[in-house]
């Protein structure tokens, strides 16, 4: 069986770079050069939204402010994702090095790691590593200190502005955008917030150069990415793969021979049915993902899958905005009513319209993305939903 899928070993490789040396090297460079190289590499955020990382840094650098922050988003709340935990456990200083380079580039003196509450078991060890790293930074002449904040235990706190609110000691409710974090972020100051994995790639690009990164992936999706593979698969786990593969390639490697659908990007991602495996690319030109890949075989009821997701969103919505708070409940109650025959199958069309409204009118990415699983599952598995 031919397999186009390419495994890569950049992220977890422990001997490829000395992270303090990487920072030292960066400190000798001009911040604009570093940023331009990251822009040139085509690196996009690995937290899900896929914003070009170099541009984000550039915007933050351009802000005239004495106080700026670098924040590492380690909230990792998306069901089926556990890659950031693995990165922080295996190669924590790579993340810290990325944050330090960012701080140097934009002119920040303080950094925060917002660590998912469930990962508190790592806290002691991480704190030690961070402390060591902070004193190394002093030695190499970078005025930058990182501290770890334990998460509030809510999925929505992974949303960047809710995360800021949470660090500020407030209720984790997403803010209006604009202004964006690079202008008004943590404590109202210009802030770069990146995913754990994103920071690792920035350090790596600084070390190996943009070219090495650009060799991997496609025009729109440069580089490799860490995937969390789960569901009906004999090979559940963490894999770093080159971007640009099709779902077909992926299923060949990870499926159990009976895969009927793959949920790309976790609960808030899209469901790809078997008939679309071949033509769907995993990446920004196709279906982007924060890393979660869930496989479902024919024993699964897609109604139950969707219901689980909707229950998750109904619980995890912060509840402040109408389309999301009430919309999630209506989608959930709606498919239940259709299943029980209390509403006609045509009600699913009303619900799809509602999901469209949520997609464009909800306040943050959580409510906006509920339409992804909803519409893709209802459209592709309508019979399973109704009968």
């Amino acid at each position, binding site marked *: 069986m031919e397999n186009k899928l390419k495994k890569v070993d950049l992220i977890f490789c422990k001997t490829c770079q000395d992270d303090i040396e990487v920072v030292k090297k960066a400190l000798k460079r001009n911040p604009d050069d570093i940023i331009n190289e990251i822009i040139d590499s085509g690196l996009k955020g690995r937290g899900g939204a896929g914003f070009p990382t170099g541009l984000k840094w550039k915007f933050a650098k351009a802000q005239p402010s004495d106080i700026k922050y670098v924040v590492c988003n380690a909230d990792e709340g998306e069901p089926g994702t556990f890659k950031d935990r693995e990165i922080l456990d295996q190669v924590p200083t790579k993340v810290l090095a990325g944050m330090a380079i960012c701080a140097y580039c934009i002119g920040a003196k303080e950094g925060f790691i917002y660590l998912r509450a469930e990962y508190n078991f790592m806290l002691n060890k991480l704190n030690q590593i961070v402390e060591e790293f902070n004193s190394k930074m002093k030695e190499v002449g970078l005025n930058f200190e990182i501290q770890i904040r334990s998460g509030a235990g809510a999925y929505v706190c992974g949303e960047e502005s809710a995360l800021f609110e949470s660090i500020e000691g407030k209720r984790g409710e997403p803010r209006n955008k*604009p202004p964006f974090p690079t202008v008004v972020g943590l404590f109202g100051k210009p802030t770069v917030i990146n995913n754990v994995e994103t920071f690792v790639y920035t350090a790596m690009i600084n070390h190996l150069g943009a070219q090495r990164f650009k060799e991997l992936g496609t025009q729109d999706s440069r580089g490799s990415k860490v995937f969390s593979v789960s569901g009906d698969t004999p090979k559940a786990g963490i894999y770093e793969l080159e971007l640009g593969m099709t779902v077909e390639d992926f299923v060949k490697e990870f499926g159990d021979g009976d895969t009927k659908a793959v949920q790309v990007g976790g609960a808030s991602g899209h469901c790809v049915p078997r008939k679309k495996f071949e033509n769907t690319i995993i990446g920004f030109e196709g279906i982007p993902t924060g890393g979660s890949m869930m496989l479902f075989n024919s024993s699964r009821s897609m109604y139950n899958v969707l219901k689980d997701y909707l229950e998750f969103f109904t619980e995890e919505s912060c*509840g402040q905005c*109408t*389309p999301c708070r009430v919309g*999630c409940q209506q989608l959930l109650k709606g498919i239940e009513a259709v299943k029980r025959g209390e509403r006609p199958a045509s009600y699913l069309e009303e619900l799809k319209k509602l999901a469209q409204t949520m997609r464009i009118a909800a*306040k943050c990415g959580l409510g906006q993305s509920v339409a992804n699983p909803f519409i893709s599952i209802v459209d592709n598995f309508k019979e399973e939903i109704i009968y």
Partner: protein
Amino acid sequence: MSNYMVNLKINNIPVSVPEGTTILEAAKKLNFRIPTLCYHEDLSVAGNCRVCVVEQVGARLLQAACAIPASEGMEILTNSNKVRQARKHIIELLLSEHRADCTECYKNGNCELQDLAHEYGVNQHLFIDLARKRNYTIDRSSPSIIKDDSRCIRCQRCVRTCDELQGVSALAVAYKGEHQKISTFFEHPMFEVVCTNCGQCINRCPTGALIEKTYIDEVWDAINDPNKHVVVQTAPAVRIGLGEVLGYEPGERVTGKMVTALKLLGFDSVLDTDFTADLTIMEEGTELLTRLKKALVDKEKVALPMMTSCSPGWIKFQEHLFPNLLENLSTCKSPQQMFGALAKTYYAQKRGIDPKNIVSVSIMPCTAKKFEANRPEMRSSGYQDVDYVLTTRELGLMIKQAGIDFMKLPDSPYDNIMGESTGAAVIFGATGGVMEAALRTAYEIVTGREVPFRNLNITPVRGFEGIREATVKIEGCLPEWSFLEGVELKVAVAHGLANAKKLMQAVNDGILSYHFIEVMACPGGCLGGGGQPIPTNLEIRKKRAEAIYAEDEGMPLRKSHENPEIHLIYQDFLGKPLSHKSHELLHTHYIPRKRY
């Protein structure tokens, strides 16, 4: 706001606005109204209801017009199909979570959600009814406020009001997702938490989720009971607010019509809280001068600055948040409670009525007065001094229920006794008014001359600045007040409890010192009280203030000590200010309460 202008198009019409202007404000400039629910002019922007969404040409997402600033080159559509569909969905969603039995709802006819539902022709039954199956709580524990979660749309206006305007934070958002709700500290009943009963949240709640507890039926019963003599008193700010409920624009003075209406409703005697406002000035002014004398001459330790005590929301605020400053509060009851105590004593005697047959009703711009009337201390007549407190809004509703065509009514004068008042009493309704009234009288007592301000208008204490200060130099004292010669009397005025909090912190920390401080719990003073007509905003409150000052200027007497009925009551009943009888009936004490 910046001077830099941005150019955009709204519904294809170009408009130029200063940088920082929201899409909502820019649209208003072109006379496009964008519907809102969570937005309120007095509050910070939340952007959570999403009903104000508009389409930005070329953008994937709709934008919340209340929250998003206009930017250069933006093209906005406020009424595209996409926008209408989204808004309709949003209203339908809100209704699906809402116990929308409007006919049973107190806010029927004055509800922003209802208006929008009508405007957008929504299908209330498109989505599944979520409200019916849910166990919503209706909190009736407070004598002032009913909190009905089944009518709440989670706009958080109340939360922002209580925090930003009042600095109290009795209300907060709790839980997430479908369980998200507006809650109190550990979900304790409203009666047991730090809530001051100010009612500012009620004034800004777009629906019927926060309303005053009404006593209309009890009052009708009293009126219709032939054995009861029902007296009614009307607070200063009611006469300049009531018109708004009955078809007038803000700022209309309807004193005479209001009195006529009250008589038509069947009250046996229509009297004026303004009378006891004048009385308050006599008592409180004397109290201030006495405290100053003790401090300056007798070198006794007395609590200064003295602070006004006519705003029961402010009193409860102090009891909760600054219990160490309770001594500083004037011991004077509020005019409402002075009136209540006198109605069942002085008035009863004069009119030869058995006080047990008197039902004392007051019409207040205030919800905290409902709580105040129920305080156990407020029974100095031997009965509950004030039986029922109605808001301006409740009176408006009674007038409607009675089928009275208010606008066509002739004017009537108040009954007596206790119906006579001065302009100094009217201005109690505006922030700074008590201070101004007190200065008009105290200065004259001390010097024998009028306050040195043109036309008696002490403008430095007027206005809408959150905290205002003034200094009045006392010169040419009468011999018995010579110890005050040359003293610069330092006064401060605050309105809205968030401002009061700032002022109290500064006083507590010894950063600022004064002789006399006036605090009104509500923004603008009583004219912006929690019982006043809805909606409210700065523009409306300014119009009400203008009406108050016009009412003052139109009065033949403008100084409390010139009120002939005041002379009469001291002569016939009380003796002199701060007499034993005064203390018994007109003064009170305060109790420390917990912080939450």
